[in-house]
């Protein structure tokens, strides 16, 4: 071997030895830290999955540290509680999946209701919590536990503000045309010429986010099925009712009517959330349909008087209007935790009334997951509370593949490139393809209905 080669080989050997030494050092540090006491990891799939989510960063840190300190007093064997919440919401599922696949320590998962229903439970990423929640269900408001019930099992202990669908409107623009907030669809439709004359878009929507289009469909389906929408959807998923059924097609037609009647801007498909909001904030649009988690943003961004009203009642159908949503966050048990009892103890501790109060009050919500943590008392909060209880979101019941397809189809339908009838037929065809590929619907009924009454 030449001298040069020996030098190169020597350098490589030195580099590898340094790497090995570093690894040994890191392992020792890790073992030393673990040996000092038990560590509990509270994992947030996204940066949104924290306590008091949406509050200022220092508030989140304060309430979290306060809760952890009191838990450590009650459980002195716990020496370290690590909170790891990072990344965008869209990457939350991948982050949780990757962390569990990599064998990272995860004990409690802060989880939003949507992914619990559509991915976490059926993907085996979290473990059921029936026994724990059945013992504490009296803490929660009606419908809270149901929002985390998938395939007859409960997957989270509710702990969040209540968020529901509602119309946000610019009171000043309505006052300008001399009209109050509409109660019925016909009332609203009658305002279109006046808004047009005033150079105002009646309703704007973030159509670029396809999942938001389902809100119009779901809100119409509630009315066409006479408030039996969950049962109706279950029948469609079981195959006993077709997606081309008259009630479903009617719901699609009612949704599409918003565009055809000029209420909803047909080019809303080009708008993402921030653009839609800037259109509303700047007073170019009179209203938009969204979720109440937008309240803080509206309050801090608009200079005009604003209000909320429920999805308008359509007089041509018998069902009455309902809001969707409810409690949308909770604490789940990681499927890979090796400290199941301790993780459950943390969940039980955090959801106690006195702790929930500390964690939820900074949110200044109109309602919370807890019976004894009451919401704000302003006019808007009172109006929103009058819309409760909210119905469970239907896109939590549809299999995720079908929900995704429906969103795209709705997007095309609302963009006026296909009819409601075509949309229904396409969704039926997709459903049949899923069934052919092995899809079988599983019931979403509550494990202990007494908890949700």
């Amino acid at each position, binding site marked *: 071997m030449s001298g040069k080669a020996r030098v*190169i080989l020597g350098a490589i050997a030195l580099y590898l030895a340094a790497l090995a030494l570093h690894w040994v050092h890191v392992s020792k540090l890790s073992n030393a830290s673990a040996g000092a006491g038990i560590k509990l990891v509270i994992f947030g799939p996204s940066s949104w999955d924290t306590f008091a989510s949406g509050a200022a960063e220092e508030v989140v840190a304060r309430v979290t540290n306060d809760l952890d300190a009191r838990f450590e007093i009650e459980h002195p064997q716990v020496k370290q509680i690590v909170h790891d919440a990072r990344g965008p919401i869209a990457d939350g599922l991948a982050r949780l*999946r990757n962390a569990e696949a990599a064998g990272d320590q995860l004990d409690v998962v802060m989880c939003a209701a949507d992914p619990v229903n559509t991915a976490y439970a059926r993907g085996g990423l979290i473990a059921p919590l029936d026994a724990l929640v059945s013992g504490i269900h009296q803490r929660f408001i009606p419908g809270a536990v149901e929002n985390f019930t998938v395939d007859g099992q409960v997957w989270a202990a509710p702990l969040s503000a209540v968020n529901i669908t509602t119309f946000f409107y610019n009171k000043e623009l309505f006052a300008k045309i001399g009209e109050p907030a509409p109660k019925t669809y016909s009332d609203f439709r009658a305002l279109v010429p006046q808004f047009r004359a005033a150079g105002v878009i009646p309703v704007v929507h973030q159509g670029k986010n396809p999942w938001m289009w389902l809100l119009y469909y779901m809100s119409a389906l509630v009315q066409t099925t006479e408030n039996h929408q969950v049962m109706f959807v279950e029948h469609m998923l079981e195959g006993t009712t077709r997606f081309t059924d008259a009630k479903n097609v009617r719901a699609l037609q009612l949704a599409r009517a918003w565009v055809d009647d000029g209420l909803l801007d047909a080019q809303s498909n080009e708008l993402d959330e921030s653009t839609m909001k800037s259109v509303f904030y700047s007073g*170019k649009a009179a209203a938009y349909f969204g979720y109440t988690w937008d309240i803080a943003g509206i309050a801090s961004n608009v200079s005009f008087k604003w209000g909320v009203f429920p999805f308008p009642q359509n007089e041509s159908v018998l069902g009455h209007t309902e809001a969707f949503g409810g409690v949308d966050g909770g604490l789940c048990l990681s499927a890979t935790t090796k400290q199941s009892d301790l993780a459950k103890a943390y969940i039980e501790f955090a959801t106690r009334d006195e702790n929930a109060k500390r964690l939820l009050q900074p949110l200044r919500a109109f309602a919370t997951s807890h019976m004894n943590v009451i919401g704000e008392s302003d006019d808007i909060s009172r109006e929103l509370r009058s819309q409760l209880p909210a119905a469970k979101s239907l896109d939590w019941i549809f299999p995720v593949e079908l929900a995704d397809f429906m969103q795209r189809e709705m997007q095309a339908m609302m963009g006026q*490139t296909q009819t409601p009838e075509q949309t229904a037929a396409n969704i039926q065809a997709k459903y049949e393809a899923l069934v052919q590929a092995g899809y079988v619907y599983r019931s979403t009924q509550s494990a202990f209905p007494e908890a949700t009454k």
Partner: protein
Amino acid sequence: MTYPRAPYLLLFPGMLLIGIFLLLPIVYGFWLSLHEFNGIAIGPWAGFTVYRNVITDAGFHEALWHTVVFAAIVVVGKNVFGLALAVLVSLPLRGVRAFRTVLFLPVTLNIIVIGAFWTYFLSASRFGGLLNQALSAVGLQGLEHSWLGTPATALLCVSCVEIWRWGGLHMLIFLAGMQAIDPSLYAAAKLDGANAWQRFRHVTLPQLRPIIFVSTLIALMGAFVRSFDVVWVLTRAGFGTQVVVTYLYSEAFKFGHFAQATATGYILLVIIAIFAFTYYFLSNSGEQHD
């Protein structure tokens, strides 16, 4: 005869890294695609069942068709646009260096910025869309359109943005090629009475042939593999712009079908290889014929 060992020893660390971080994942990924795999646990052997599922999926067919259309527009567009820009900036004009920098600027822009700008630019007049406002201002209200929200135009618009974004890079590639052309060839052509177009057609283009090959290959691979970001920021893969990479993303990260997503990746690899080798052999045979 003995071979010196030093070159192999020098190559070893690099090859080791390529092996660990490139070849091993490729082989492992292929092995995974032959199993039932949910992203966490590796299930039993599935053979080519997953590949069959992907190939027979209507969603995949649609995404593949969109990818081919996107690639066709983008490959031609990037080459024509890049070459045109290269010719333009090779002219002996004042301030041409600054002009080159400006033309290269889109390559350096963050995709989120590009997405925000073009979404705004192509939106409806009442949302501030400049293109529609310009059409209206010159009396072409009839052409006002939901450019990114209609299947008829969304894919074309996404392709145009991709061409605009990378045109500067292809301009540089062509410019480098043009600067390597022997000036005496132009002098000879001029003596023979060739005009500017004839010089471009009979000197520049033939001399640029190897460069066009490289540029086309880069554009082709980019169109198939690197189309995710531009599609996602402009349309979220809606309005008829679902391409194979966004389909793959949905399968893996929306639906948790990791085996299908992995198989889709390998199918895409084979498709790119077929296109690339076909193009390579066609180019080579043309060269030999010449």
